[in-house]
């Protein structure tokens, strides 16, 4: 018998009788071509056996070590309360809140998520999340095209996470390269037909970029400015909305979401109120019920695929609601001071590490550029250094492939771990 199904032989008999067929097979008589074989899958395991198999596979991973990788996913401290709440069945086993009367929990949570993102980005309105930062960047680029009525073409530099750029290109957005020097982007040469300018800050190399300059450059050519920002960084950096960006996007993974080998994460998108109709994805809005009680509902639905079909402003349907909820709970627990403290601890530790590496004779790639907690450090043999680090029980930074390692330092790293990192790298280097 199949697992997780309640059907007894007697149930099946009674149901077939009610339907008026003699066997389940008859219900598939219209299926053509019918698959008559047995699926070539390994035999069914009991729960315990399957979980033991999971255990065995997990043992083939090197998890639980201090991690110096970042580049879009950060090994941050996750409060225990986050997982405890999002695993409640009412949150975990529901779907998109099409029926608001029995979905107020998720709807209000989305409203709170949107509020958090609006506050952090300094923009008026945010959506309920998109898949990840990369798709948020792509959706934002397409949005600039719709808003400027130009073809989707964005100006950007090597400062944008190359993975985001790849997704952008997959989504059919044309890219115009901008010069990148000394760790930062030169926004002076934005093409006149660009629909948008994209600036990431801190950028892929950890450097704090001048979002204002990007916004100005966009404005000059009638394009829109898209800022890509780590939400933790926005606890200490001026929000993109205040610096003139029209759209802000990013990754909420740093807000209490486990690394989980790359997903599920959640992309965020925020923009100015006047652009809201071009914002893709769900939006929850406030309203009242028949008795005048405050309540929340999905709104501006006419932007979406299930209503507008081919003329929708995106095909997105399912987003990352549960992850967005995790980020909301994280933010509620940490609060503005907590977020700032996370940022400050990370800055302190990263700068300590950078300093110690300098003392050990290693050179930062962009020594003059302002950075928060991620930086590129030059190293003759990054691969060798990472192997030595792994031997010491440390997951090293990202091999940039050109004689430098991109190192991310979060609040989770201890001085002990930082010192060990320096010692290994100094010896291996």
């Amino acid at each position, binding site marked *: 018998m199949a697992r997780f199904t309640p059907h007894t032989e007697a149930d099946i008999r009674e149901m077939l009788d009610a339907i008026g067929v003699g066997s389940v097979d008859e219900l598939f008589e219209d299926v053509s071509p019918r*698959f008559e074989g047995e699926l070539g899958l390994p035999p069914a395991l009991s729960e315990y056996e399957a979980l033991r198999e999971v255990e065995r596979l997990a043992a083939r991973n090197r998890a639980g070590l201090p991690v110096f990788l970042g580049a879009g996913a950060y090994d941050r401290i996750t409060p225990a309360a986050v997982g405890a709440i999002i695993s409640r069945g009412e949150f975990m086993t529901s779907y998109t809140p099409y029926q608001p009367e029995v979905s107020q929990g998720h709807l209000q949570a989305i409203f709170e998520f949107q509020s958090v993102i609006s506050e952090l980005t300094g923009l008026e309105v945010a959506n309920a999340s998109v898949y990840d930062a990369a798709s948020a960047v792509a959706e934002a680029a397409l949005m600039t095209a719709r808003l400027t009525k130009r073809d989707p073409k964005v100006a950007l530099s090597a400062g944008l996470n190359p993975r985001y750029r790849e997704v952008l290109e997959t989504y059919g957005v044309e890219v115009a390269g901008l010069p990148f020097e000394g760790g930062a982007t030169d926004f002076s040469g934005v093409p006149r037909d660009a629909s948008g300018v994209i600036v990431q800050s801190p950028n892929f190399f950890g450097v704090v970029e001048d979002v204002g300059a990007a916004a100005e450059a966009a404005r000059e050519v009638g394009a829109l400015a898209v800022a890509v920002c780590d939400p933790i960084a926005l606890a200490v950096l*001026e929000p993109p909305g205040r610096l003139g960006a029209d759209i802000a996007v990013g990754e909420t993974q740093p807000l209490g979401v486990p690394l989980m*080998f790359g997903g599920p994460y959640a992309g965020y998108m925020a923009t100015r109120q006047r652009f809201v109709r071009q914002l893709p994805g769900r939006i929850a809005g406030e309203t009242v019920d028949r008795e005048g009680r405050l309540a929340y*509902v999905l709104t*501006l639905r006419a932007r979406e695929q299930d209503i507008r079909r081919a003329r929708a402003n995106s095909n997105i349907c*399912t987003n990352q609601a549960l992850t967005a909820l995790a980020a909301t709970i994280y933010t509620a627990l940490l609060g503005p001071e907590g977020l700032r403290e996370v940022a400050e601890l990370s800055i302190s530790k990263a700068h300590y590490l950078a300093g110690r590496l300098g003392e050990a004779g290693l050179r930062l790639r962009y020594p003059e550029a302002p950075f*928060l907690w991620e930086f590129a450090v030059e190293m003759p043999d990054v691969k060798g250094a990472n192997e030595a680090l792994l031997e010491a029980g440390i997951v090293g930074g990202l091999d940039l492939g050109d004689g430098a390692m991109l190192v991310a330092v979060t609040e989770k790293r201890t001085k002990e771990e930082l010192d060990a990192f320096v010692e290994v790298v100094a010896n291996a280097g």
Partner: protein
Amino acid sequence: MLGNLIRDKGRPGRRGYTLPRPDVEPVSPEEVVPERLLRRERPRLPEADEPTVVRHYTNLSRRNWGIDTSFYPLGSCTMKHNPRANEAAAAHPGFAGLHPLQPEEQVQGALQVMYELQGFLAEISGFPAVSLQPLAGAQGELTSILMIRDYFRDAGDTGRRVVLIPQTAHGTNPATAAMAGFEAREIGLDARGCVDVGELRRLADESTAALMITNPNTCGVFERNMEEIAGILHSVGAFLYMDGANMNANMGRMRPADAGVDIMHFNLHKTFSTPHGGGGPGSGAIACSERLAPFRPDPVVERRGEGYRFARPEKSIGRVAAFHGNFGPMLRAWNYIRMHGPELREVTDLAVLNANYVRARLKGTYRLPYEGPCKHEVVVQPPKGIRALDVAKGLIDHGFHPPTIYFPLVVKEAMLIEPTETESKETLDDFVGAMLELAEAKPEELEEAPTRAPTRRLDEARAARNLKARW
């Protein structure tokens, strides 16, 4: 009194979480960032203690229904039980703690899960090639159509500008086609609710890139002419794409590749029981033929000797996600498939049995626009004079989450009911009982429903008119 938002429950200075004390010399943002780039105003975020946060979100959850609380027959969404074993698997720190950029030799367990899952989906669909990267069904669609686009580009076949889409399709299909730069052209149905093959013959030509079919379609009807349809498309050099949202009616009974489908997507969160999370995360793996395989997104997982590694397909469309896809749902789907093996066919069988049982029981009272048998879901119409919306809200007062309503668009007052295989006959009987009772209710009474839910009906127009989407 303050409102009920988490922000209303805070007060300046409160904290819900304590961080480790600094163990290095503090460096402030002011020391490292130019002043004009420093934040001037604090964001207005909640300042609340852990007890308040836990209570707030616990009580929010209690204003929400899920499969765990109620029958949830939302058509086309496959709201089946989410086994708790999947959650135990996903909680394993050996997976949950992995950074996506750790070198391959450090993540062999995760790569093996992906490699095996690729193989499982290949076997279930009949295709030789799979990509797990798309982050949701709609992105799986987009990935598929972009692969088709790139196939034609690569072949120098520049005239393919049309994607045909049956009237019954999910809204994501036309939206996807448009997003990929195609013209989405609708194609009509025959009397059975299936793609009108005659019309297809007329429409299909060298400008056709693909037909996006859903099978069983969103009327719950099996598209019996799949092979013929595939033949027509292939004869004009076009592709047949299948929306796999409804694979819960196919596993072990029909393999899309066998029917001439060229490419399809799965919804791991539907067919393979990963939690829907109130609207995600999903996972939209795709499977395709050898011809399209080189265009899959980067990366896929390959086996080399005893180990596994990432590889970029030769003519890849590129990435559709920053990393490798939604690994959490993949691990859960892997676990679900491991717990079923070839018995997945019984999942399909019982899902279809349940839908047909509901269909048979509602027959005579509710109108059935299409002949049976249906597959894993059934579309019905309320008796004349009663609105689908009112029946839906009435169901809430009976403790049932409503089915999908007003979809598919081709059926007036449609109610699309998908019970899934994890519901018992008693639950279905109770649901049918409620449906039959509501069919006889006075419309003006039904208009009042729901009265026993956390809220009454909402003023949806007001939300759009006076947009308030944040505190």
